[in-house]
């Protein structure tokens, strides 16, 4: 299957855009969700610091959850692509050299040199391939090490998150004690007010009793003198009312302030608890970070095909089992086999390929055209050993993310079968 370079570029562009949107969306989601949770807790300046710290922590957790591995894998892929590019350049140089020799009138005299040059170039190619394999293996090992590093980093982040909570809580403690003392004082005052109100009620009852007795007094003179006293009592009782109203008025802002302080303490507690919760989530192996509903397009020809199928319709392929095994595998160089001409090999290769079990054929088929192209490459039209054919074909499988050890083994067996027959 020939993958249109324009299509590849489009896939790359789409993937970069999807990555960017995913990243933006993730950060935005985190900010929104956390920002919403602490909305109205603090002033803008404090909110900014809190959200920023939370973002940093979440971003770091996320980084050590996924990104480091992605970066490693991306680097590994870049290394491999760079090596592949070097190989292609060598192929071009050799092809150019061959073309020049072929047109030379002294071609026959040069043909021996050409064979030597070709052998040398092939050796170089194989050396580079081995280097490539070593590098891939080394990077795989690095990824494994990265897992340990990530676990350690996540533990450190968890420690920081918990420490934020414990430090904030510790800092709030004296304030809480101070507030508790004031609450008790406030309570005491309220009790005194209640008592005062009860006292006032008692005074009022007594006053009403006096008034009743006064009303029973007969002479005007008696009434005047006592009424003056009663007037004084009424004014004092009204004074008590004013005292209570005044005091309640004074207590109102105090109560408001106390509630405000309590709310502030609670807000800080809730906020710092978010850091603890994040530490719990962040240290979990299956943490999910507001992953938006965006699907990254895998930059493999197979996915390109599948995308085309989705777009234009077509038959559903069988389940891809190519990724069901770890990427590490060893190319078995095996004992040296006799060499054979590529043209004969290619026809046998197609024949054998068609005889593969359907599942295996489906797994390998995305890489078939590239394998054919590589086998038809002028550089490979000479005499190659079975191991050289295997070394030639394995990177193509990797290019198509076909890492199933069974598929690789089937391909090796296919090559060996051809060599054993011819």
């Amino acid at each position: 299957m020939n993958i249109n370079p324009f299509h590849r570029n489009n896939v790359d562009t789409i993937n970069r855009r999807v990555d960017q949107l995913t990243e933006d969306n993730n950060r935005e989601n985190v900010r929104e969700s956390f920002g919403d949770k602490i909305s109205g807790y603090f002033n803008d300046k404090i909110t900014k610091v809190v959200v920023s710290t939370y973002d940093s922590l979440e971003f770091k957790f996320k980084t050590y959850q996924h990104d480091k591995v992605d970066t490693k894998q991306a680097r590994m892929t870049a290394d491999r692509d760079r090596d592949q590019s070097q190989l292609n350049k060598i192929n071009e140089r050799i092809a150019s050299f061959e073309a020049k020799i072929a047109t030379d009138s002294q071609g026959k005299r040069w043909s021996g040199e050409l064979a030597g040059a070709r052998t040398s170039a092939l050796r170089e190619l194989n050396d580079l391939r081995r280097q490539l394999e070593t590098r891939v293996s080394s990077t795989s090992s690095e990824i494994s090490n990265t897992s340990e590093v990530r676990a350690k980093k996540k533990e450190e982040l968890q420690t920081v998150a918990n420490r934020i909570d414990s430090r904030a809580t510790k800092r709030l403690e004296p304030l809480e004690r101070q507030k508790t003392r004031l609450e008790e004082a406030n309570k005491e005052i309220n009790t005194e007010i209640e008592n005062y109100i009860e006292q006032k009620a008692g005074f009022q009852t007594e006053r009403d009793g006096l008034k009743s007795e006064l009303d029973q007094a007969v002479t005007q003179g008696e009434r005047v003198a006592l009424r003056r006293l009663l007037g004084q009592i009424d004014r004092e009782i009204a004074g008590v009312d004013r005292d209570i109203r005044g005091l309640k008025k004074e207590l109102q802002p105090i109560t408001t302030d106390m509630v405000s302080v309590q709310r502030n303490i609670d807000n800080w507690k809730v906020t710092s608890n978010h850091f603890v919760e994040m530490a719990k989530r962040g240290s979990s192996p299956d943490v999910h970070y507001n992953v938006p509903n965006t699907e990254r397009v895998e930059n493999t020809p197979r996915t390109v095909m599948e995308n085309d199928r989705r777009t234009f319709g077509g038959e559903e392929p069988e389940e891809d089992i190519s990724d069901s095994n770890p990427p590490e595998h060893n190319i078995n160089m095996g004992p040296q086999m006799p060499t054979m001409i590529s043209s004969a090999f290619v026809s046998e290769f197609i024949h054998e390929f068609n005889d593969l079990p359907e599942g295996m054929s489906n797994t390998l088929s995305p890489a078939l055209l590239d394998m054919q192209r590589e086998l038809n490459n002028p550089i490979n039209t000479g005499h190659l050993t079975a191991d050289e054919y295997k070394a030639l074909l394995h990177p193509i499988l990797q290019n198509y993310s076909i890492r199933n050890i069974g598929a690789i083994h089937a391909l090796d067996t296919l090559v060996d079968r051809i060599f054993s027959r011819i």
Partner: protein
Amino acid sequence: MQVPIQAHDEQQDELEIKAQDLLARIQAARDTFEQTTLNKVESLTKNVEILKEDMEKTSDDIVNILEEEKKNIEAI
């Protein structure tokens, strides 16, 4: 029915004493309230002001903690 003059005087004295006593107790209660409760409210008001300032300081301290720990986070 006519009440005797002596009885009137006694009743008047008794009422006056009761009224003066009530007046005195109300005034005493107000004084006590002013001297104790109002003082407590005044003190509480001052302490709440201090509490609010401490709350500000606490918030500033926690912000400093966050900024400090953010640097630690970024260094990881």
